[in-house]
């Protein structure tokens, strides 16, 4: 970024609704991707967590449109994002260079895939027993199901990441001084999705076998997040934005956000114990903390993800 860029833009008052939309968008996109990767791996033992991922995606996505719509000055005109009303120019509103315009369509398409997968797992879990629904889901048994999951994952990744690009494509200090926000939000979105799935898998029968995968992926996603954070700081050098970002009271948010990365990093070095197996030998077993402790740790990770977004969104606003 050019250090000489000096704008006088007014802040857009995108605060709490948008902050939580960004948070939920990361969880939804990440959950869908993880669920799909588990399915593509083809191990039936992972299916409970894969289904959980699709449930989480859909339910979390339900929160997103209301947050976006309530934040509008004229909420009932939300559809103006999609349909052009300029006289003599009717048609769809699609501006690929405007992340907000692209995001509207991305969110709509992702919601479609999320809804399909949600109803699919509802039927597979016998929560929905309509014969017509079962016949419809049968169509997804083969390649079509995989195509749906893969396309949904692509849109999910877009939704998790475009939120950062939306901030960057502005003339705001900090936001427009870096190219890293999309990647940073995407990485923390993957981390938050894994945290949510880890917490909720305690309540899903048969999900325990996927716990180790969730722990491991949480650690890898955290490493990715750390890399993006370093790039974020490096990209802001010389722009004057670092002084504005890393100052009180935002330092408190940064402290929580960075502290929440510690469990993920330490997870790369799990404690291993040698235990006897059936009196015939021994084996290495990864020792994880108890379920409640893990859930508390993952809840802390989620708080950190919120704090990270707050530490980036709030400093440009006048308080």
């Amino acid at each position, binding site marked *: 970024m050019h250090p000489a*860029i*000096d*704008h*006088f*833009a*007014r*802040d*857009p008052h995108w605060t709490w609704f948008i902050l939580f939309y960004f948070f939920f968008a990361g969880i939804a996109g990440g959950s869908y991707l993880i669920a799909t*990767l*588990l*399915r593509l*791996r083809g*191990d039936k033992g992972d299916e*409970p967590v*894969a289904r959980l991922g699709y449930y989480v995606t859909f339910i979390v996505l339900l929160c997103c449109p209301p947050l976006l719509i309530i934040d*509008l*000055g004229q*909420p009932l*005109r939300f559809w103006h*994002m999609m349909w*052009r*009303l*300029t006289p003599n120019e009717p048609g769809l*509103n699609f501006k690929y*260079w*405007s992340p*907000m315009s692209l995001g509207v369509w991305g969110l709509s398409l992702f919601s479609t895939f999320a809804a399909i997968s949600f109803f699919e797992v509802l039927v597979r*879990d*016998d*929560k929905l027993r309509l014969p017509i629904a079962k016949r419809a889901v049968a169509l997804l048994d083969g390649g079509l199901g995989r195509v749906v999951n893969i396309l949904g994952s692509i849109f999910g*990744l*877009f939704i998790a*990441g475009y939120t*950062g*690009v939306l901030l*960057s*494509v*502005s*003339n*705001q200090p900090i*936001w427009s001084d870096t190219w890293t926000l*999309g990647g940073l939000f*995407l*990485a923390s979105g993957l981390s938050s999705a894994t945290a949510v799935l880890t917490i909720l898998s*305690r309540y899903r*029968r*048969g999900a*325990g*076998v996927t716990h*180790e995968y969730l722990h*491991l*992926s949480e650690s*890898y*996603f955290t*490493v*990715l997040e750390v890399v*993006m954070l370093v790039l974020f700081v490096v990209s802001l050098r010389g722009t004057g934005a670092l002084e504005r970002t890393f100052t009180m009271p935002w330092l408190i948010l940064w402290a929580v956000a960075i502290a929440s990365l510690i469990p993920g990093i330490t997870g790369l070095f799990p404690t291993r114990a040698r235990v006897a197996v059936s009196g015939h030998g021994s084996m290495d077993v990864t020792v994880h903390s*108890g*379920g*409640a402790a893990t859930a508390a740790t993952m809840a802390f990770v989620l708080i950190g993800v919120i704090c990270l977004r707050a530490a980036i969104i709030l400093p440009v606003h006048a308080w």
Partner: protein
Amino acid sequence: MEITPGRSYGFFTDTSVCIGCKACEVACKTWNELPGPEPTFGDGYDNTGELGAQNWRHVQFHDNVKDDTLEAGMGTAWLMMSDVCKHCKNASCMEVCPTGALMRTEFDTVYVQPDVCNGCRNCTSACPYHVIQMDETNKVAQKCTLCYDRLQGSLEPACAKTCPTDSINFGPVDELREMAKQRVETLHSQGVTQAYLYGADDSIYGGLNAFFLLMDKPEVYKLPNQESSVLPSRNDAGGYLGSFGAAVAGIFAAVMALRLRRPREPEPATAAEPPAPTTTDEGGK
């Protein structure tokens, strides 16, 4: 005066003759029925504060009077400037607007369609001039319309009509640019060499329909300089590439986690495992 659709119209604001009377602010508010926020009374002559949803003209006051000397000011002891929407050729607000509410009129000005705008405030985050703002009453973005309604009736904008010193000039942009060039030459010949034009050529956002004759650096008037005259879309490619890189790395990380986990063993019943829910978990793929 004859105002022809299809021609580019704008303002040439000559700050060297602005006397800070604020008649432009009053005329603008009167014609456009803008009550405006409560004025503030601080240490200065500026009671308006800033451009915004209710302030479509704002006279800036810059006090350069030195405390310890009595030098001739050469017009710079006090700098006054009637600020307004620049109606940029390459407008940041138009670029990001997702609804198309921000449009270019037949007079080549930038106009917010109040019945189309839904108050997303993306334009607010983009405008580098601190101009456009969501109005707290009607909850849509508002800014100077360059008196679109008056232009349609062949009337010049209210601010230009009322300006007593002709600091604000209205007309076709090409004619205004010629007038501005001559004014700068006159000032230079009189020794006022600091006078220059801001936005009269295409170096600032492709050219500003509302451009200025300034007496100091752009930053003094809270105007981005030429190097800073960049659009929000400059970050599209970098932002999406960064996201794409992170997405690829994220997928790689997730796949590696799948490959590196230990081979599956039969799951023992543990205390952490909850009682069986009502789901059957059958029929997985």
